[in-house]
């Protein structure tokens, strides 16, 4: 898994609530059994005229097409970010585009876990704080980069403008060290087998397949 320690980059505001994973990547853009090459389709319906994914067809109004935000690596969004479909393609599209962190008041639960699994840092800050960050960025997006320090759990913009966020310690460790959660669980095989042996006695019917 890709590590996340610190990151500083341009933060693009998409301050809408309930941004669903269909909007992040429509089903029609999931064309291969592959986790790669999906960045071009990120936000297809918003980023391209009539949703037709093609160079030269970008919608000029969409934030990620504006000169100041072309190299955005952080998103600022409204609440319930990534709600809807469980498609992990949404996270793969974001990471392939170059997004390293998303700052939102809340996230869809499956999307949040998918982010953690792929080294994309989901940061929870309240909506008014996000508005403050967006306002600071808006003055000069290229100069006023957002700096994230996962170990310290901080987000900083202008001098003196720093916020602390909360993240579960285990997720923080996974991201900081780039650990593979499957490997970690496979090391606990013994306790899993002990559980199953006991459970077979308690719920034999659940194992009768």
């Amino acid at each position: 898994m890709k590590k996340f320690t610190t990151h500083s980059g341009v933060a693009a505001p998409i301050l809408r609530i309930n941004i669903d994973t269909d909007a992040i990547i429509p089903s029609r853009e999931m064309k291969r059994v592959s986790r790669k090459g999906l960045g071009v389709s990120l936000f297809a319906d918003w980023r391209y005229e009539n949703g037709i994914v093609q160079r030269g067809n970008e919608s000029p109004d969409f934030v990620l097409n504006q000169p100041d935000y072309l190299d955005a690596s952080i998103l600022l969004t409204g609440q319930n970010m990534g709600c809807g479909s469980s498609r992990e393609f949404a996270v793969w599209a974001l990471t392939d585009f170059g997004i390293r962190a998303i700052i939102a008041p809340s996230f869809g639960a499956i999307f949040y876990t998918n982010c953690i699994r792929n080294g994309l840092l989901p940061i929870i800050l309240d909506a008014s704080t996000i508005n403050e960050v967006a306002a600071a960025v808006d003055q000069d997006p290229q100069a006023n980069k957002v700096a994230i320090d996962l170990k310290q759990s901080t987000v900083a913009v202008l001098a003196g403008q720093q916020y602390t966020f909360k993240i579960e310690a285990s997720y923080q460790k996974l991201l900081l060290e780039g650990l593979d959660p499957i490997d970690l669980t496979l090391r606990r095989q013994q306790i899993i087998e002990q559980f199953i042996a006991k459970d077979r006695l308690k719920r034999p019917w659940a194992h009768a397949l």
Partner: protein
Amino acid sequence: MIHQKPGLTLFEKIWKDHTVAQNDDGSSLIYIDRIFLHERTGSLALSGLSASDRATKNPKHVFCTMDHIVDTTPGRSDDTKVPGGIEFIQVTRDLAHQEGITLFDLNDPRQGISHVVAAEQGIALPGCTMICPDSHTCTLGGLGALATGVGSSECEHALATETLSFFKPLQMRINFLGQLPLGVTAKDMMLHLISNKSAAGGSGFAVEFAGPAIADLTVEARQTLCNLAVEFSAFTGIIAPDEKVITYLKDKPYAPKGAAWHQAVNYWTTLKSDVDASFDAEIDIDCADIAPTVTWGTSPQHAVSIEGKIPDPQQAEDPADSRAMSRALDYVGLSPGRPISGTPIQAAFIGSCTNSRLSDLRIAAKILKGKSVAPGIRAICVPGSTQVKRNAEKEGLDVIFKQSGFEWRESGCSLCFYAGGEGFSPGDRIITTTNRNFEGRQGPMTRSHLASPATVAASAIEGCITDFRSLGNR
């Protein structure tokens, strides 16, 4: 001194019995009883597993179907209308065989939409944990299973280890009190709830649905209800299993048999929240307040009674809500203050993991019988499984659908979403029994209005969004 254990919720009982270990960070390593896969995201989980040289730990507990990409037109094959779809189907099939997983392939009589199949085959059971890389896995909470959607990587984790770590969600109970008005269904109950409490209202919670109106629901209707828990952003929805559920599961192909059945039933009867269980949130809903409900915008929370009017964004308390409403109205091309009923439609769709079971098709057929879909309306019915389709045909429902002007399809997810193959036409307004009215969900620039099968059938006949209760009065 007598030391009393605190009461547990239904969810907590299942959680406790599946806790392999308490992790240092406060999360729990949970044993997963059943894993269900489909070709869209299951393919990625299986290929990820294979690429890491890992294997499915217990293939007997893993099932797979083809629903998302497969065509629903007659004579279908691997070569679907979805660009690149053939790869999803064939990779899934090859890897399912390699892993020794039970596959309900495209011409198998057990094929169908994952969550419909998991129930009708007796794969999902009360008191079992179940995951599927699909957000609507919560459907199976209708049987009393602890079922939740996950991503492909989490699914891969469960395949390799039979476990997943979760932080225990907060506990919410929603009590549906009183009796539902005639013709009001589980779909209306959930759209009513989500429109009142927002699409994020269940965020962080596992939701138990309770109350007399829940007890009155059929087991199929309970699946519809729990299906929409994810549209409420809940971790899952769950309903305590009762006699109806036990009767429903008896003799299902993968349900326990003989002595195991009796052991299971004994266990299932303990699965209810204790009287002194504590909930972090509790909501009471008076069923008398629920009317047939339909969405007007681009989020399931944008819903109103069929007798209601499209709301004014300026009346919204929260500015972010107000902006989202304005954007939605602009997208769907409707104006505030106008009655939702009477809005012209171009298409009608009956299907999806939400509303495609035999009981749903019966409700729609009852309304369609002897009537015709309005001129120019494209109307499609896609049964939730091949078994549902065959049972419906035994009752002659297919004839009613076809005579009224509906297409009668093979089973699958079909036009619930647009995957680059079949879609509705740009600008089409669709009345649909599905679960998501997101921008472009059913085709580029399409506008989806979520409703119950009765509302969809009546609207197809009238050519506009229609209160089915008014049909007989004309």
